[in-house]
């Protein structure tokens, strides 16, 4: 009996994620559905998804230190961030689209709606993107972002973080999340991180300092692995079509 290569994905463990309505994160109150999500058996619509080709990307797309540099290098801590994207059964997810965005070293975003007085850096844009390789590995280079204040309670501060967007092989794997840095003392106070119900899942968003991958007289390194949903085996009937 052959295993179907393109079968259904295992169901999402909703206990491992934030609920939609989390009053400590105030914006969620008016932007969360009242009704329960309706759970559907997966069809071709859900088990397929968009794919991307290496030639769609520029040579500096994963180099945030240089991809917006105009007349010099951006100011801040030089870091390399890398890791593996795997599915929940431990298999690598090759050719996944990984997109990242972040504030600069001051905690200021290059976005027309960000009015924080922390200064913009003329040589830093703050976004990058890449595809994972055949082992599910990704790597990019950047400036470590600064923490920044926001209006939730009046004196709220985000820990330093980098936003991540992932598209694996199937539409059900679509995921947006945030990565934090080991040792940041703002982590335990953050209401956005506290929306996640378990300590283990919160810890899963913290990148670890990767001493072995520091580059001498150049950059430090952080390691951040990501788990996406995995396809189940389909050993008997295929019910997708």
């Amino acid at each position, binding site marked *: 009996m052959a295993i179907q290569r393109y079968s259904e994905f295992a169901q999402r*463990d909703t206990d*491992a*994620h934030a609920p939609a309505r989390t009053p400590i994160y105030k914006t969620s109150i008016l932007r969360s559905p009242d009704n329960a999500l309706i759970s*559907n058996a997966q069809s071709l619509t859900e088990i397929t998804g968009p794919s991307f080709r290496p030639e769609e990307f520029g040579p500096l797309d994963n180099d945030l230190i240089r991809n917006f540099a105009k007349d010099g290098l951006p100011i801040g801590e030089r870091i390399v961030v890398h890791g593996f994207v795997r599915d929940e059964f431990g298999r690598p997810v090759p050719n996944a689209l990984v997109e990242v965005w972040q504030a600069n070293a001051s905690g200021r975003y*290059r976005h027309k709606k960000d009015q924080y007085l922390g200064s913009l850096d003329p040589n830093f844009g703050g976004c990058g993107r890449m595809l994972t390789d055949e082992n599910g590995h990704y790597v990019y280079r950047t400036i470590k972002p600064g923490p920044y204040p926001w209006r939730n309670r009046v004196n709220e501060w985000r820990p330093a973080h980098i936003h991540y967007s992932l598209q694996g092989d199937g539409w059900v794997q679509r995921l947006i999340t945030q990565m934090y840095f080991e040792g940041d003392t703002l982590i335990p106070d953050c209401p956005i991180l506290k929306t996640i119900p378990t300590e283990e899942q919160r810890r899963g*968003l913290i990148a670890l300092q990767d001493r072995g991958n520091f580059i001498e007289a150049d950059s430090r390194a952080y390691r951040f692995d990501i788990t996406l949903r995995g396809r189940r085996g389909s050993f008997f009937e295929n019910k997708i079509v």
Partner: protein
Amino acid sequence: MTQQIVHFTETASQTGGPYVHIGLAPHQAGFEIFANQFGNVLTKPATKGERIRLEGRVIDGSGTPVRDALLEIWQANAAGKYNHPGDSQAKDIDPTFRGWGRTGCDFDTGEYFFETIKPGAVAGREGKTQAPHIALIVFARGINMGLHTRVYFEDEAAANEADPVLRGIEWEVRRKTLIARRELRNGEVVYRFDIVLRGENETVFFDI
């Protein structure tokens, strides 16, 4: 000691935040960086199928448009075939049609739109047929995990009546929140699809 099944938990989702455009639509954030940007026009000149515009707004629980939302769609081509090797139907892929696009809502009006083609019907589970539909996901500040929904078409009433996913919504009164309204505007076919996050006429969202 028994052996253990190795299983990892999916990485926890977090909100896209208010500046999601920097990473996913940098032009809208206010700067140019990538030579090749992903956007909201899914068609190329050679793409087969009826051109349509899909547009609308995202509305919060107070009736206010969500002006910082980011939307993505995933759909089959005009023949009802996904551009993915997992689509086992005996139909041709349209090489000019990836089937995926993204856009931000307008910062002033809250309006979004996609230029795409009307998808064909796709096989459903266990020999059924799904009505033409577009999968859509909403990300925004205040949304902790992307909200999945589906767009169906007003002028496909018979197919919608037989659609296994629509029929799976026990509350018939809620099914209509997934049907886009068709109109003709200067010769262009426009489907209007507003997404209500909370409250009266709340859109159906799926756990897929």
